[in-house]
């Protein structure tokens, strides 16, 4: 069955995130004075085949470790759902 993983890759806490800092400064300059911390990241939507949820979970975990995130400086978290739940407008090409 088909699965959709939305993988979010971000710099580890403690690694300076200049892009997030710059966006934070821009938000404050627009009047959002309460903005104290912005972290940037990358969203990867991955459609793939797997037999069941456990296998899909294991595959995403492996993808993150092998390629999607560099553990020296990044973390990866993800949401995983079966493809049937995806609306037509969300479907991957």
């Amino acid at each position, binding site marked *: 069955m088909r699965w959709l993983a939305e993988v979010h890759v971000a710099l580890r806490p403690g690694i300076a995130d*200049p*892009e997030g800092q710059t966006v934070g400064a821009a938000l404050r300059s627009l009047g959002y004075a309460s903005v104290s911390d912005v972290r940037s990241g990358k969203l990867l939507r991955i459609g793939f085949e797997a037999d069941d949820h456990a296998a899909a979970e294991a595959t995403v975990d492996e993808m993150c470790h092998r390629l999607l995130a560099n553990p020296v400086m990044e973390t990866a978290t993800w949401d995983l759902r079966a493809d049937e739940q995806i609306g037509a407008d969300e479907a991957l090409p």
Partner: protein
Amino acid sequence: MTLLAARPRVTVAVFPGTWSERDFLHVAESVLGWEARLVWHTETDLREPDAVVLPGGFAHGDHLRTGAIARFSPIMRSVEAFAASGGPVVGSCNGFQILTEAGLLPGALTRNDHLEFRCDWQALRVEHPSASAAWLGDFADGDVISLPISHGEGRYVADPATLDQLEREGRVVLRYADADGRVVPDANPNGSERGIAGIVNAAGNVLGLMPHPERAAEDEVGGSDGLRMFRSLGRWLHRRPAAAERRL
């Protein structure tokens, strides 16, 4: 006699998006009279090199992360084997990023702290040149040299334990410095931890650096401190019997 005539043979790896391979080729062939060849990233035959270069550029468009995709190119299996056998490997700029992604060097390189792309001449302090006889044999501890930098993602990061280990083992060989060789925050062009611009592996044969030695090999283009790395390599190869034997 053949031994004296042996010319070093350098293989320069080329990935889609690499941009410094011709400069390395020029230095090796035209400036030094060495043999050099470009090898495409999908190949695995390195053509029996004495040394391997991973040049700068934007391999695979720097997509996902710098070097993240290049490290899986077929040529990297051969580069890893060459490095494991003690062969000299240098990665400059994007090549350094690929070496860290491949795990041949520790740490990682990420976005400059000010988000700007920096293209400039940069003073560097040489430290522990004895850690890499192949690449730094012609340098003295504390030498201040000048090399071009050209990168947007050169901020070296690693966890404190790794940084401490690199320092303890004398494997931080280049640091961003001012003209007097002082490693001060104002001289750091990208926010690298501890001003680190170049490191070597434990065996000393793999060097990664963000600056571009190949762009500083002739005084006519502004400086020749980069050429000293190639000369170090040439002398090291001549002292190494194995390299000469392979040529006989």
